[in-house]
Each structure stands twice: as structure tokens, then as C-alpha cells.
């Protein structure tokens, strides 16, 4: 039994996603308590750049190189990962609470008959090696601390920004090439196409900065103001259920109970009144700014900074002010 801490590395167009580095950084912290090794699990093909970027963050990289791993399907991933886990018996397996993590982890946990805590906002490791996962319930109205049974590995998917990326991880991973375990008869699903989201930078669940507007923006074309601000901050644009139901914005950008939960470092809400559906989706953002004409808007109860004012006046001025400040930094 290796007892190691494993992280499933996620990558897009050959580049490793930030959540993977966050989880490896957490793994490095945990390993200092228990002396385990940290390993990244990397599946795909043409992953030289990914291997290079992961090397300082792990003791080992298990590399499975096969074209059928790109794009992701659980059919291809599950058998290969499961057989590697059975061979090495890691203590922990972590992944991002992403479309891949949420598709693969519950099924893999059932397959391995082990515990899995989904969509966590925190993980902690006791001196005795006990892992506790913290996760929101009821859309974030309460949180639960989850304990795992004796089964291994203990599995969790974690939201973005739950951990900081270690600036000096100080590892130098050994790359271990593993033959993939693919049974063609099990490859039932076939990805036949991919439609890239228009104008999308990062998904709102992955972006460090999210700028959003609600019905207070008055018309769909006015989102240009919000997009300009997001561009300056290198952030992504979110919205509320109301504008999605109006057909003004795409569902993928909806924040809240029937949309997405975001964990941005900075979330800015313009013309958003703060319905419970919406604020449940921003509970784990680090800093929240709200601007609304109504000084009694509920959104201010969930914000760190607020301005009672007109977004049509404030947003363009903010864009200019940030532009100036960020230029001065360079």
C-alpha cells in the first residue's frame, strides 16, 4: 500500500488547469504531516508541456498516454484509473469539482466501493492522517464536515480557489509511464463534436474575477459595459436567473441555485438585488462588491463593499479607474 496522495490532473489544449495546482499544493501540505508522497495522474496525449508544468508540484507523475483519453469520457478514464489505484492503493484521490470531476468521481467511487465527498470548499488533514471534507448543503445555507469510512482511497472533488497555489512547491517529479488499460468494447460513448463557447475566456467557475449584472442592466446590449470591465480585469462575465430566463444571456453564465456556484477571488455584482437563488451561488467568493441603486437591496447583506448608485455611471468609471491603476503597475 503506497498511502500516497493522488491528484487527477485536468488539462485543456495541453495546459494544466489551475485547480490541479491548487490540489497538488494542498497535497504537499498534507504530506508534510504524514510523510506521504504526492502524485499527479495525467491522462491524454501530447502532454509534454503538462508534464513540465506539473514536475515541481509532485513526487511522481503517473502518465498514461493514449489518444482515446482526449476528449475525456468516463468509459476511457475509469478502467485505467481504477486498475492503477488497485495496484498502488493511494490513500487519497482528489480532483476538481469540474464537468470531468463531477462526471467521473461518483462513478469511480462506486466502482472502487469507497467514499467520495463532492464539490468541497475545504479539506483538512489531522496529525493522525484523518481527512475531513467540508462541503455546502442546500446550496450553501449550511455546511457539513464529512468523515470517510475505512475504505481507500478517500475521494473528493474540490471547487476552485479553496487552496492557494504553492509558489515554491520544491518537488521534482519522477515520470512513471503506465500502459493505459483500455478495453475498446467499453468505449461506448463517442464525442462527436465540440462547440466552443463564444467570447468565453474562463468559465465563471474557474475565473479568479467574475463581474456580473442582473435585471438592473435593463437591456441585453448594455452587457457591453460589464464585458469591458471584465476585459480590463481579465475576468469573466456572470449573470442572474432573470436575464437568462429573458434570453439576454447564456445559461452557462448563470450564477446561483439553478445555475453555477462560483468561488472567485473577486465577485462584482451590478444591478443585482440579491435574491436567495443568486446569493447562494456566491457564498464562497472571497471578496464581494455590490452596486445597486436601492440602498436597501438584499445583495448588500452578502457583500464586503457596496455602493448605492447607478451602475450606468459607475461601471464605465470603474473600467477607466482600473485601467489607469493596472497600467501604472506595469
Amino acid at each position, binding site marked *: 500500500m503506497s498511502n500516497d496522495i493522488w491528484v487527477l490532473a485536468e488539462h*485543456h489544449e495541453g495546459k494544466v488547469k489551475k485547480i490541479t495546482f491548487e490540489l497538488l499544493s494542498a497535497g504537499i501540505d498534507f504530506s508534510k504531516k504524514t510523510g506521504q508522497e504526492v502524485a499527479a495522474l495525467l491522462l491524454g496525449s501530447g502532454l509534454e508541456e503538462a508534464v513540465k508544468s506539473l514536475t515541481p508540484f509532485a513526487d511522481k507523475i503517473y502518465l498514461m498516454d493514449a489518444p482515446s483519453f482526449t476528449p475525456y469520457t*468516463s*468509459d476511457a478514464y475509469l478502467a485505467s484509473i481504477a486498475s492503477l489505484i488497485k495496484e498502488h492503493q493511494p490513500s487519497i484521490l482528489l480532483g476538481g469539482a469540474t464537468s*470531468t470531476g*463531477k*462526471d467521473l468521481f*461518483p*462513478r469511480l*467511487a*462506486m*466502482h472502487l*466501493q469507497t*467514499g*467520495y465527498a463532492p464539490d468541497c470548499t475545504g479539506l483538512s488533514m489531522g496529525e493522525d492522517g484523518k481527512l*475531513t471534507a467540508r*462541503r*455546502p*448543503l*442546500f446550496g*450553501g445555507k*449550511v*455546511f*457539513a*464536515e*464529512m*468523515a470517510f*469510512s475505512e*475504505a481507500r482511497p478517500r475521494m473528493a472533488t474540490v471547487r476552485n480557489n479553496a487552496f492557494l497555489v504553492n509558489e515554491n512547491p520544491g518537488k521534482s517529479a519522477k515520470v512513471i509511464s503506465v500502459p493505459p488499460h483500455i478495453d475498446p468494447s467499453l468505449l461506448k*460513448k*463517442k*464525442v*462527436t*463534436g*465540440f*462547440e466552443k*463557447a463564444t467570447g468565453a475566456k474562463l*468559465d465563471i467557475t474557474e475565473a479568479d*474575477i467574475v463581474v456580473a449584472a442582473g435585471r438592473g442592466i435593463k437591456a441585453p446590449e448594455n452587457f457591453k459595459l460589464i464585458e469591458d470591465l471584465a476585459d480590463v*480585469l481579465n475576468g469573466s462575465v456572470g449573470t442572474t436567473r432573470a436575464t437568462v430566463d429573458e434570453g439576454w444571456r447564456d445559461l452557462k453564465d448563470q450564477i446561483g*441555485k439553478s*445555475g453555477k456556484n462560483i468561488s472567485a*477571488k*473577486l465577485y462584482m455584482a451590478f444591478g443585482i438585488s440579491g435574491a436567495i437563488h443568486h446569493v*447562494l451561488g456566491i457564498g464562497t467568493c*472571497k*471578496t*464581494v*462588491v455590490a452596486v445597486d441603486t436601492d*440602498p436597501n437591496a438584499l445583495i*448588500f447583506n*452578502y457583500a*464586503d463593499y457596496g*455602493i*448605492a*448608485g447607478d451602475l450606468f*455611471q459607475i461601471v464605465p*468609471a*470603474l473600467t477607466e*479607474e482600473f485601467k489607469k*491603476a493596472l497600467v501604472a503597475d506595469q
Partner: protein
Amino acid sequence: MEIYVLVKQVPDPEAIVKVKSDSELEIENKYFTSFFDEIAIEAGLKLKEKTGGKVTVLTVDNRRVDALRRGISMGADDAVQIADPALEGADQFALARTLSTYLKDKPFDLILTGRQAMDDDAGIVGPAVAECLGIPHIHSIIGLEVDDQKKEAKVLREVENGKESLTCPLPALFTCQKGLNVPRIPLVMNVMKAMKAQIKKVDLASLGLGPSDVSPYIKIEKYVPPPKRPPVKMVKEDFPQNVKTLVKLLREEAKVI
């Protein structure tokens, strides 16, 4: 087509949910059928209308069958409740094992459910049922077309940077996301009928399962209230000074930019 839809009655998003003690929650008595499960029911009904067949709604719940009645009022043909004292406090894996044991000898072509239940927000049961049954699954679909002759589904799935199209042979399990459809609102007459509809009740023993088959892999050790934000700092200066101050606060105090 034989379609099964896994559903759950959960506290309404408006319901107040608070921590009562480490091991207990206080939940306001306001329940509804989990929104994503309603989307799954609608998807099942739409397919039935096209290809014929039958839609059965299925829940594991010792107390509430309202989600089943909702399903019937929308147009489902049959409803099954799995209930057993041993399922009290069961985790999602135990629920998945229970559901899949019930389903394994049924003639299903398709199993649908919500992308997650709006109480535990876990999203485990669907994929775990598919694993137990050895059928493919796809999480969070926003488009679905079925070729009943070829027994194949064309599915659109939401991923981080766009939309992915997939083909998948049936039988399969899909979890449904907002955008797939808009669930119908049942007619009052059908709601009345659903109140009286017969619901088949199944317990663990009749599935050949014992308490050890539903022992949990994960358990809630402690409930905690959500992290509290400090009171909001309102920037009360006049425009444009308020904008300058806000930028300064975000850079120097919050240090997020």
C-alpha cells in the same frame, strides 16, 4: 421505450435551513420536487410522446412521496417508492445500490435523473446507479435526441468552455441540467388524480438487501453554519470619488487586484 426517472422531494430554495446542533438541522416545512428532477421527468415524457412506451418515477424516501405524485400529475404512468427504516441516514452510495437493485431486472431503455438533488447537492446517485447497472452515463445534459430503432442517444453536454456532443448506446443513464427543457405545469385535474394514484411500495428485504448493504462510505460528522461575511462597508462618497475609493480598497485592503 421504457424510461425510469429517479426523483426526490427536497426543501424549496426559499425554505429556511439552519444548524440546530452538530448533528441536526432545522428545515422549514416547504418542499418541492427537485428542479433538475422535474427536468428529467419532462425529458422522459417528451420521449414517450414521440416513441410510445412508459415512464416510471422512482424515489427512495421513507416519508415523502410528493415527487412521485408530481411525476404522475405531469404524465408519468407508474410510481414506485422504496422505503425502509434501515435507509434512515443512508449515504448516496447506499441509495444508488438500492435503486440499482430495484432496476436491474427491469426492461429499461433509459434512466434519467437531475444533475444533483437540491438538498445534498451531491450528484452521486445518478452516475453510481449507472456503475452498479454496468450501463454508460453522461452527467449534466442539455440536449437529448433518441433513435429508438438504433437504440442510440445523441446528447449535448455542458463542459467548462463550451458544449460537447456525444453519441451513446442505450440503455444509458443521463443526469439532466437546466436548459434541456422547461418542465410542464400539470393541469389541476391531473394533480387531483395524482393525489389518489396508487404508489407501489418496496422495502429492502423484497430487494434481497440487508442493513449491511446500505452501510455508508461517507458520513456527516458535523453541521456548521456558512462562513459569515463581516458587515458590508458602504462607500458613501459622491461620484466619481466613490469609484476611486472602491478601487483603492480592492487593491490595498482586500488585495484582490
